[in-house]
């Protein structure tokens, strides 16, 4: 008896870079490879295309965000050409907004942390948009040299129609904390992509924090060698009518690499929509890796929608472990009951529960200066709904 030949499976166990999967478009600088989406594509089907303010049409524009930063000694920020950015080894664009951003930005900003420099304080860059009329293309490269140690915070405020690609090139053995905060006005649109290249034995902790605006953020991770570690954290708070979409793609392309994804979000108000897509691919070469993904959504009111898709594609059995978890639900009534039984009023108890839900992510971000502020922002968001008195802010 023979077993029939099977082209479908032989193609699935190939060893080349390409993996049979409907989840990942082939990265390319060529705009022709990233046609205008119809909304039926796997990577676009959760996004409200009509509300993107025409960004995807790709008009040229000279508008810029206002940059503000204080650079520590040794760190430089300068403009380079798009070709130079390519030469540094940035990852190719994986979707239309990032391809457009590279094509239209007319060069990139390079934030350069030289090798072996250890920074005590975070580099905080604020990017401010003045009006949603402005169409802004952004192309950034953050390079951290071998064995350096740095924290970079990109904070987005104001309003704009902003499409940007940011590459984080992490040298061997470097330790990097990267934070991107989207605290836009309600009428802003932000289509972002953070592409992270993790050097051999390097570790990176990336946090995406989204409160305001329409946000669609792709975070991608690849490894330049064995032993790299990536921790991807996220925190989002979607209000009425707001769309917050976080997409992750961790490509375990090297052995003994690790990734850990932990995203938490809350939703409140009619039409609040949170989307979380967590793709993890474990290639055949990636033996001995470990990965875990978690997404937790707290739905605070009626009329919200939370989509949560932790996709896992595994091509080798020689791994330490792989798993994911996703939960969506309301308050834990038991926690609420416990607090109330201790004499805490219901409103206050609810706020405490939400506070506790976010506090552990906020503490993990690794930039102490941000902690307090983020907790206060969460409180402010909560008051819009739960409406307890602001004087009883809980301290961490």
């Amino acid at each position, binding site marked *: *008896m*023979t*077993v*029939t*030949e*099977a*082209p*479908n*499976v*032989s*193609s*699935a*166990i190939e060893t080349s870079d390409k993996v*049979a*999967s*409907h989840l990942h478009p082939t990265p390319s600088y060529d705009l022709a490879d990233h046609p205008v989406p119809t909304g039926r594509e*796997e990577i676009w089907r959760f996004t409200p295309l009509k509300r993107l303010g025409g960004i995807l049409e790709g008009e040229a524009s000279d508008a810029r965000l206002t940059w503000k930063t204080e650079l520590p000694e040794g760190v430089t920020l300068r403009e380079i050409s798009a070709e130079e950015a390519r030469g540094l080894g940035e990852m190719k664009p994986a979707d239309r907004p990032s391809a457009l951003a590279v094509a239209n930005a007319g060069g990139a900003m390079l934030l350069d942390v030289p090798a072996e420099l250890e920074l005590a304080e975070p580099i905080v860059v604020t990017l401010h948009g003045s009006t949603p009329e402005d169409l802004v293309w952004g192309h950034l490269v953050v390079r951290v040299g071998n064995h350096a140690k740095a924290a970079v915070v990109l904070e987005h405020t104001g309003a704009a129609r902003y499409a940007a690609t940011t590459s984080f090139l992490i040298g061997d053995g470097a330790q990097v904390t990267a934070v991107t905060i989207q605290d836009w006005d309600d009428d802003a649109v932000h289509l972002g992509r953070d592409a992270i290249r993790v050097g051999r034995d390097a570790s990176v902790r990336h946090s995406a924090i989204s409160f305001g605006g329409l946000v669609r953020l792709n975070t991608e991770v690849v490894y330049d060698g064995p032993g790299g570690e990536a921790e991807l954290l996220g925190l989002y708070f979607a209000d009425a009518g707001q769309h917050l979409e976080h997409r992750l793609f961790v490509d375990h392309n090297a052995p003994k690499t690790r990734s850990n994804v932990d995203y938490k979000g809350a939703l409140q108000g009619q039409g609040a929509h949170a989307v979380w897509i967590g793709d993890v691919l474990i290639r*055949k070469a990636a*033996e001995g890796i470990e990965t875990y993904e978690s997404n937790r*959504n707290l*739905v*605070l*009111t*009626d*009329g*919200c*929608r*939370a*989509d*949560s*898709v*932790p*996709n*896992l*594609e*595994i*091509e*080798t*059995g*020689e*791994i330490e*472990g*792989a*798993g*994911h*978890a*996703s*939960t*969506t*639900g*309301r308050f834990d009534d038991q926690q609420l009951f416990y607090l109330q039984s201790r004499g805490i009023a219901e409103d206050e108890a609810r706020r405490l529960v939400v506070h506790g839900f976010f506090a552990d992510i906020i503490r993990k971000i690794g930039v102490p200066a941000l902690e307090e502020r983020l907790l206060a922002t969460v409180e402010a968001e909560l008051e819009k709904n739960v409406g307890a008195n602001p004087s009883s802010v809980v301290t961490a």
Partner: protein
Amino acid sequence: MTTIDQRNPELEGIGRYEFGWADADTAGATAKRGLSEDVVRDISSRKDEPQWMLDLRMKGLKLFGRKPMPTWGAELGGIDFDNIKYFVRSTEKQATSWEDLPEDIKNTYDRLGIPEAEKQRLVAGVAAQYESEVVYHKIREDLEEQGVLFLDTDTALKEHPEIFQEYFGTVIPVGDNKFAALNTAVWSGGSFIYVPKGVHVDIPLQAYFRINTENMGQFERTLIIVDEDAYVHYVEGCTAPIYSSDSLHSAVVEIIVKKGGRCRYTTIQNWSNNVYNLVTKRATCEAGATMEWVDGNIGSKVTMKYPAVYLMGEHAKGETLSIAFAGEGQHQDAGAKMVHAAPNTSSSIISKSVARGGGRTSYRGLIQVNEGAEHSQSIVKCDALLVDQISRSDTYPYVDVREDDVSMAHEATVSKVSDDQLFYLMSRGMEEDEAMAMIVRGFVEPIAKELPMEYALELNRLIELQMEGAVG
């Protein structure tokens, strides 16, 4: 590092599939290939169907042509719709005793052990479908007296047109997906079950599907109606011979469970490795009703099957237990879908899969909680076991929650057979493949124990066959 299979090439193909024989095939040899309006008209007129059914078939054909092939799942490029035989009549009339069947068909079922099971009263009714039509049908007399209907779908259309027209196509509309449209156009055979109010069918009803002709397309259509507070357990099994070119099995199963009713549907799909198995299965549950899918996918080249439960009434409950094995050349793309459309509904999905020898298993599922379905609960657990380094396992769990007062949890793990476990068992004197099979059996045990006894035994045996040659 060499893989286990590479080290032991002689183990390849040993005792892998034992239902692979083929009977002489006179009916199939003369059957027409390809799909056209004439083929559809011909099927309908041979069955002497009412006009509304022909119209529906035509609509299905049109929608089939219009809908694109799904690209998000398994590789389906190997299906040649023009080469498939859409209707093969193997015998002129349905038999009422096994002896009346043509010799070779009877032998086939003897070898599969079906008449034996019936004799021993392990089942309450049997339907055997060979090619496009049901060739044997029997139900226990006492059930018949209580008004239980267990017929093949073609006969049901003739004898009970009123019930039929009321429910047919209501759970899965003609244009639901490309393959449901194809099934609507060319359906033939399948089971029709009606369980009246309050009747408990305590022993399973069983159907057995066999494809014999090469390049055959089997398109059975099953419709099950469980009336208020009634219960039925339906079991189906599937096999086919091994040919070098592919066959297609594309069934549609519609189930309606009324208030307080309960239906359990067990499938052990063991098609040969040249069958594309693309099946649409869906149930609707009224208030307090329960639907349970027990879905075993062991055979076939490609399976795409996501049994669904639409929880339409309060306190309705849906459950899916899914188990998949993918060996060399196989892709099992299975999963489940639960739609919570009413308050206080609950669902659970438990999926276990094992991939070996370069096979690929995918779990693909959707949990949707609609607005208004408050206090709904859902839990999804997927575990995958990879036995070697060349196999692949994917998990694509979609969750869409539109209501605040719900609890939804999803968890997945993927693991390899741990060296510790193997070492322990071998230190107790077990051979490696024996130890491996035991670990795999332990892994699927929570699902195996939900199967009827003889199927659980069958499953265990299949695991052993699958695992044979997996280790050296």
